Every structure is written in structure tokens, then in C-alpha cells.
């Protein structure tokens, strides 16, 4: 159990350090790069003199750089991410609802794509070399290489052709709901296309990894042992091969949270899903730097936390880490 504790400590420390680096990065990025917000602050026609002064003070620009840095870290850690140029509200107030919307799309899509990837990967590996394997692997590769926004666009065209399927936003505009159920139904109908799009572009890689990792495991000695015990195919796959093949899968899923986020940003843009991705897109157009900065921070922290969870899952699945 001592091994597990030190493993966790190591991962948590790494997560904290990563978040610290991201905050520092954020600080310098938005001060050093050309066209940075401080430079633009004075030229922004949307801001009044009073707002500029408030921001000036908030960024602590009247102080030396190291003090600014400390203030920035303090502000970031206490959730004070500044005030949006565009919304004229604290960034946190704008981003938290957007983050919730993103998670409504992201969490189910991640779960569905992992499940789909595992199932197709196992089937593919077991029937390796057959036409079924070729077909499953082929479609996985095709979806893996497919640009998210392209697949989304195709779905929009098809949905418009069929009619009746919402292709944009999260709720129908101007509808008065008579209860919670119609509201959820409306949400689900809007969720359908973005969810399918994101699930499809994500699952392909999981299929390929699951298949290859299973095929690797099939050559291990303990698979022959299982066979020698009289285990049938089903038992060999699910009891012996699958738990071992899952290990590389979990670490890949952890590494790929960045990709999931990328897919989500692009999906949200195409379907105007009011999440953080769409917010980033709008912020780029309106040059709303506090939002961009805040979005980057929130997304990074989400990814780091998701990674941490994946590490814990990994250690739960692998006794070699659990009992060192």
C-alpha cells in the first residue's frame, strides 16, 4: 500500500505543477506576445475609461512584473479570472455555465466512444485477419482521420434534408416549456447530432488501440496457460486478455483528453453548442482576451483533473501498481 500512496502523491504533485505552469504560461503569454491585451486595452472601443482603469488596476499593471505575477497567481487560484471585454461580466460567471454545457456534450460522448471502441476493438482482434476485422478497422480508421467539423457539416446537410432534426444550439428558441420533461426532450434532440459526431470521431482511435493491445496480449504466455486450463474463447478474451489490454487503453485515453477537447471545440463551433469551445471561437472574433485566457485555464485544469482520474483508474486496474 505504501507504493500506491507514493504513486498517488507523485501524480497529484505533477498535476499541481502542471496547473502552476499553465497559470504562469497564461500570465506571460498574454503579456509577451504581440497584440497582447494590455497593448490593446487602450485601443478597445468597447471599453469606457472607467473600465479600462478598473482592468488596469486588476491586472496590477502599475506594479513590478514579479508582483503582477504573484497577483495573477492569487487571482487565478481564487477564481478571479478578470472581466470579459465583451460580456462585461466576471469571466468565471460567463465560463462556468459554458463549461457545464460542454460537459453535457463531452462526458456522454467520451463514455460512448470508449464503449464503442472497446467493443469493436475486441471483435476486431478476435476475428483478426478476416473480412469483419478489415471492415471494423477500416471504419475506425476512416472516422479517426475524419475532420470533426467536416463530419458535423455533413450531418447538418443530411439532417436539413431529412428535416425536423435540430442542427444548432442547445434549446429551441422562443419555446415555453410546460415542464421539465419537454425541456429535457428538447435538449436531447439538440444533443443528438453533436453527440453522434463527437462519439464517431473519437471512437476510431480507441478501436485501433484496443485491437492492437489485445493482439499483443494474445501472444503472452498466460493466454496459453488459460487455454491449457480448458478456457473457452469467451473466457480467454474477457477474463484473461481484456483486463490486461485495458491498461494501455487507459493510459492512451488519459493522454488523449486533449484530443477530446479539440473534438469538442470543433463540434461546438459547427453546431453552435453554447459550450467553452464556441465561447473560444466567439472570443477570438471579438478579441475578448480575458475569456480566452480563462477558457484555456479552465480547459487545462479540466484535462489535468481528467488525467489524474485516469491515473487512479489505471492503478486500480493494475495490481502491479496497487501492491508494490
Amino acid at each position, binding site marked *: 500500500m505504501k507504493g500506491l500512496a507514493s504513486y498517488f502523491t507523485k501524480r497529484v504533485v505533477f498535476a499541481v505543477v502542471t496547473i502552476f505552469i499553465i497559470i504562469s504560461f497564461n500570465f506571460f503569454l498574454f503579456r509577451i506576445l504581440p497584440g497582447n491585451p494590455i497593448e490593446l486595452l487602450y485601443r478597445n472601443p468597447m471599453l469606457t475609461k472607467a473600465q479600462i482603469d478598473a482592468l488596469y488596476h486588476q491586472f496590477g499593471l502599475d506594479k513590478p512584473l514579479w508582483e503582477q505575477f504573484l497577483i495573477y497567481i492569487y487571482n487565478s487560484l481564487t477564481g478571479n479570472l478578470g472581466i470579459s471585454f465583451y460580456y462585461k461580466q466576471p469571466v468565471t460567471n460567463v465560463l462556468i455555465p459554458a463549461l457545464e454545457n460542454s460537459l453535457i456534450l463531452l462526458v456522454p460522448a467520451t463514455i460512448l466512444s470508449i464503449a464503442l471502441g472497446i467493443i469493436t476493438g475486441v471483435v476486431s482482434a478476435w476475428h483478426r485477419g478476416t473480412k469483419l476485422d478489415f471492415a471494423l478497422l477500416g471504419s475506425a480508421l476512416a472516422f479517426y482521420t475524419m475532420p470533426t467539423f467536416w463530419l458535423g457539416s455533413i450531418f447538418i446537410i443530411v439532417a436539413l434534408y431529412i428535416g425536423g432534426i435540430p442542427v444548432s444550439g442547445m434549446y429551441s428558441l422562443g419555446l415555453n416549456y410546460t415542464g421539465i420533461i419537454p425541456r429535457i426532450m428538447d435538449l436531447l434532440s439538440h444533443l443528438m447530432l453533436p453527440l453522434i459526431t463527437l462519439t464517431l470521431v473519437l471512437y476510431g482511435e480507441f478501436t485501433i488501440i484496443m485491437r492492437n493491445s489485445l493482439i499483443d496480449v494474445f501472444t*503472452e*504466455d*498466460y493466454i*496459453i*496457460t*488459460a*487455454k*491449457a*486450463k*480448458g*478456457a*473457452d474463447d469467451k*473466457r480467454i478474451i474477457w*477474463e*484473461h486478455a481484456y*483486463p*490486461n489490454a485495458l*491498461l494501455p487503453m487507459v493510459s492512451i485515453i488519459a493522454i488523449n483528453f486533449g484530443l477530446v477537447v479539440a473534438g469538442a471545440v470543433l463540434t461546438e463551433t459547427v453546431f453552435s453548442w453554447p459550450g467553452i469551445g464556441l465561447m473560444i471561437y466567439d472570443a477570438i472574433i471579438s478579441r475578448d482576451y480575458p475569456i480566452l485566457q480563462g477558457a484555456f485555464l479552465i480547459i487545462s485544469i479540466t484535462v489535468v483533473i481528467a488525467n489524474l482520474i485516469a491515473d487512479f483508474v489505471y492503478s486500480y*486496474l*493494475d*495490481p*502491479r501498481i496497487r*501492491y508494490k
Partner: protein
Amino acid sequence: MIDINDLFVRYKTENGYANAVDHINLRIEKGIIFGLVGESGSGKTTLGLTLLRILPPSAEIASGSVNIDGTNILRINENEMRKWRGKRISMVFQGAMNSLNPVINIERQVAEPLIIHENIDWEQALKIAREKLALVGLGENTWKRYPHELSGGMKQRVVIAMAIITDPEILIADEPTTALDVVTQDRIMKLIKSLQREYNLTTILISHDLPIVSEVADKIAIMYGGKLSEVGENEQILRNAKHPYTSGLLSSIPEPGSSKEIKGIPGEPISLVNPPKGCRFYNRCQFASEKCKNYDYSPKIVEVGHEVYCTLYGE
């Protein structure tokens, strides 16, 4: 009684077929320890895997039969065969290597054959598994552990417990002591011997190590290049070896107390792919002659129970 007739097993390779078991005839009596000795690449492991029909996909049983108590196990279907594996025939692999599943604990792995073959719940199966683990000398503190927490010798005991849990008739042990230290080797061998006595297990002991095998085996077969070279009772092989290869193997055994240089056999083992006609040992044999090149591997009987495959011994 295991009766192997004209067994021919080959592997598909990039350079053609590798004849791992090349038309072999062998008879293994019930309840004995039968040692199968050869260098790596001699086909001995393939022979073991064939008895369980768990050869890799590249392998092909091209001809022959293996009759166990009157059933040709090469002819029965896969479902039938599964009922033999782990039930009537068990296999002990090199436990020190990766024959144990890293993510399943010891007692569950040992109990699994019962779950597969008997109508039994996990609780009962685990109870029996613990008894067998205790029998092979593993105490309670190891039962719930995972393979990476155990030493090589302990893992070997786990693999043995797993193999005997269903009270099989036949036990195939493939290099059960390789990669273990000398003291542990000795203990594992004693364990196998005592189990064989207690349960009247027909044990096939596969090893590259003739001295170790000769300590426990009743009968010994020597394999070289996919062929048998000599088969006999333990004493006949040790005291009256006829095949130059067997003599070579024996001369590489250091005499107790002697400081004599170990000789070994010069030359490299022959490739199983496209072997030459005639005797496989030809290129390494100091007695090789012209007629060896056309030797058809007809056995020469030295005395009852002792056969040699060599041209040195006349018609």
C-alpha cells in the same frame, strides 16, 4: 497409456516449413515420469503442446495420431478437446516467466480450472485452491497476492497447484525448473516426484537438462532436430547410452567431486527448416559416416525397452 504414432507437426515460416516433430513414434506408460530431453529447437515443447492441442496458429499437425486410453485426441472436435485440457491433461509451464496472469490474484487463478470444468461455485473452488496451494507449500499469506509479488520458485509452485487441482491423469511439465536457482530446482523436482507418487500421475517432464531429468524420470527419450535419437529406461540411458548425441549430453555432466573439464557437444543445433536427408546429427557427430546420409530412422533395439536411432548399431 499414451500412444503416439507417426506424429508430424510443422510450422509455417518465411523460409518454408519447420518440421518440429518429424514422424515420431512414442509410447508412454501410465503412472510413470517420462523425461523428454533435448536442446531448444529440438521439438520437445511442440510435442508437449500437441498433446493438449494448444499449438500456435502457424503450426499444423500434418499427420499421425495420439491415442490416450484408446481415444485419438487429434480427431476429436475442439469442444471435446477443451474438456480434456486442464481436466484430464494439465500442463505446467515455466512459472518464473509470464505464465501467470498479472492482474488476477493467485488463488483465483489456481481455482479457475474447477470453475471451468466442475459444477462448482467460486467459494468452494477457492477453498480447494487454498488446500492445493498449501499442499505445494504456499502459506496463507500468499493466497491473495498477485504474481509480481512472488519469487520465481513460488510462482512455479502456483503453476503446479493450478495444474493438479482437477486431479488430472496426465501432467505435462515444460521446463518447470528453468530460470530457478539450484536449491529451488531441487525442491520443485521433489514436489513433482511426490505428487506423481501420491496421485499416480502420468508425468511428462520436458527439459533441456538431462541430469535434472535423470534424477526423477523412470523413462527418458532424447530428441534432436525434431526426431527421437534414443529412448530407454532411466538406467539404460544413464549407464548404457548408445547414441553419440546422448553420450555427448552425458559427458557434459560434471562428475561429482571431479574437476574434469566439461566437454559439451561442438557445433550448432540443426535448423528444423529444410533439414538434410538422413541423420539430423550428422554434421556434429564424430562417428558420422557415408551411410548416415541416407539413414531412414528405423529404430535399433538395444534391449527390451531401449531403442536407439543410429547407424552405428547394425541390423
